């Protein structure tokens, strides 16, 4: 089990001079610009930022789904050229295969690798046991709760023993209690597997509670506004979230993000105001409207 999963001292993510534009009818739009981040082997790093700042775009580029416009993404010195089983991904919408049972979902990566059936069944059972899901191996995902689905999603991504685990707001759709439990499970698995994690969230508490380091992004076009080390000792308990240390980190991050959110929303509000004016003025003089 451990030799299948443990990837000690591997999984060094490096993103350099990164920018990503996408094309629209009006021209190219910058989603992310001038960004450098890195994740050391075995490190847990989060990216937070206002919505629409491009943090998911950045993560999708690390996964290999998007190509950077400039710059380079490497894992252990190798350039990322497309999705691969070396970089496991967990999605907010769970994205389990509805036509596969829980165990078949977990087995999928091993099947793609050509592992014989009996062997991968055994591996999947062991992993499901670790996540407390052995009783549900024959269930179809539809019948599971959100928390269970995402446990399957995490186990499925870990089954192939990836070097890094990428998570895109994985607990965003869960209720508060389930989310706390899931954070604990993720922490346990991460500590056991010594895997590098890149975690995207908009939840500041979540980012601080889980991470060794947090990157805070600016409003669009996104870039890194700040890098905050989280020196809280491990293992972390829920009660730590009330400590002065935690609250200080939270206040700091909060004000960084508020600045950026206001910047992002300010833009939108101005745009809307202008549009409103245009409509009202259409065919009338300003005096008519007033």
């Amino acid at each position: 089990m451990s030799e299948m999963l443990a990837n000690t001292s591997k999984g060094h993510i490096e993103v350099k001079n990164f920018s990503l534009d996408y094309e629209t009818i009006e021209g190219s739009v910058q989603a992310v610009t001038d960004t450098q981040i890195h994740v050391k082997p075995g490190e847990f790093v989060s990216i937070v930022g206002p919505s629409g700042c491009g943090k998911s775009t950045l993560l999708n580029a690390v996964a290999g789904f998007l190509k950077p416009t400039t710059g380079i993404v490497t894992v252990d010195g190798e350039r990322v050229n497309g999705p691969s089983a070396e970089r496991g991904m967990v999605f907010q919408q769970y994205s389990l295969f509805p036509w596969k049972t829980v165990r078949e979902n977990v087995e999928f990566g091993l099947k793609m690798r050509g592992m014989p059936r009996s062997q991968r069944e055994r591996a999947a059972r062991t992993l499901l046991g670790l996540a407390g899901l052995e009783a549900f191996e024959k269930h179809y995902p539809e019948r599971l709760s959100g928390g269970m689905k995402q446990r399957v999603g995490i186990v499925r991504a870990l089954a192939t023993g990836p070097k890094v685990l990428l998570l895109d707001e994985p607990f965003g759709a869960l209720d508060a209690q389930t989310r706390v439990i899931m954070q604990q499970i993720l922490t346990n698995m991460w500590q056991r597997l010594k895997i590098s994690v890149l975690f995207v969230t908009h939840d500041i508490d979540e980012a601080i509670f889980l991470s060794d380091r947090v990157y805070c992004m600016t409003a669009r076009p996104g870039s890194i506004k700040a890098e905050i080390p989280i020196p809280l000792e491990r293992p972390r308990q829920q009660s730590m979230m009330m400590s002065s240390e935690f609250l200080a980190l939270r206040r700091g991050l909060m004000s960084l993000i508020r600045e950026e959110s206001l910047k992002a929303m300010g833009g939108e509000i101005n745009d809307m105001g202008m549009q409103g004016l245009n409509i009202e003025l259409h065919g009338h003089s300003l005096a008519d409207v007033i």
Partner: protein
Amino acid sequence: MPAIAEAGSVRAVTPPATPHSFGTLALRWYRLNQSRLRATAIGLISLLAFLLVWHLLTTYRVVFFVRFTNVPSPLAVYASFTQAMHDPKFLMHILLSCRRIFIGFSLAAIIGVPLGLIMGRFKLVHEVIFPVAEVLRPIPAIAWVPMAIMLWPTNEQSIVFITFLGSFFPILVNTLHGISLVDPVLVRAAQCLGARERSIFREVYFPASLPHIFTGLTVGMGVAWVSLIAAEMISGQYGIGYFTWEAYSLVQYADIALGMIAIGVLGLGSSLLIRGAGQLVMPWRST
């Protein structure tokens, strides 16, 4: 640890397990299936009411805009049914129609489903075939009858061809629709688990399209019967459609209704078969 927590909360809600007597079990079963039982009961009553109205309209030979003077009564149809059951010719009509449906529909499925899947995945194939399909699709299968007679050397082949045409387009169009709706996130999930194009096709696109493929098969089967009956009435020598038309020519009025009911039962039976196949192939869909 969380599993224990969840299991614990479930246990707290369920009442303590006590041995159930047969009576309480029966009562629980009744309560759980109440709405289904109700629907069945009302369905039976409404069918009986239909038969009763039919009986009354025909025995009193009602003429009110429509004329029931020559319409056979349910009892007359039942009499001709018992007679037909001993008539090998009637059974042969049914058998032949079923064979035509089987061949025509199977060909449509064997060609339509893979073609739809390939068109959904390969843009060039789509761009080449789709315009032709769109032009041919609105032509009702019945309109193909004269052309089919010219195209095929035997009557039998042209009837099967028309049945095929009727079911082909619904199957093709629904398969295409299904593959266009596949959630791209599932494709990505497969990709970052190491799946390549061929595996993604087999493990994601195909199963994800199955619900729509089966919609297409169900619709296609319905249209196959419509086309078959029309073709048999026009150009057939055997088959249940021919039987019904012949009954009219021979003034066997009870046989007209018998033929119609037989067509209805066969159509219902074949769509139930497809639904059953769908449940077998997609166990994750049946709750």
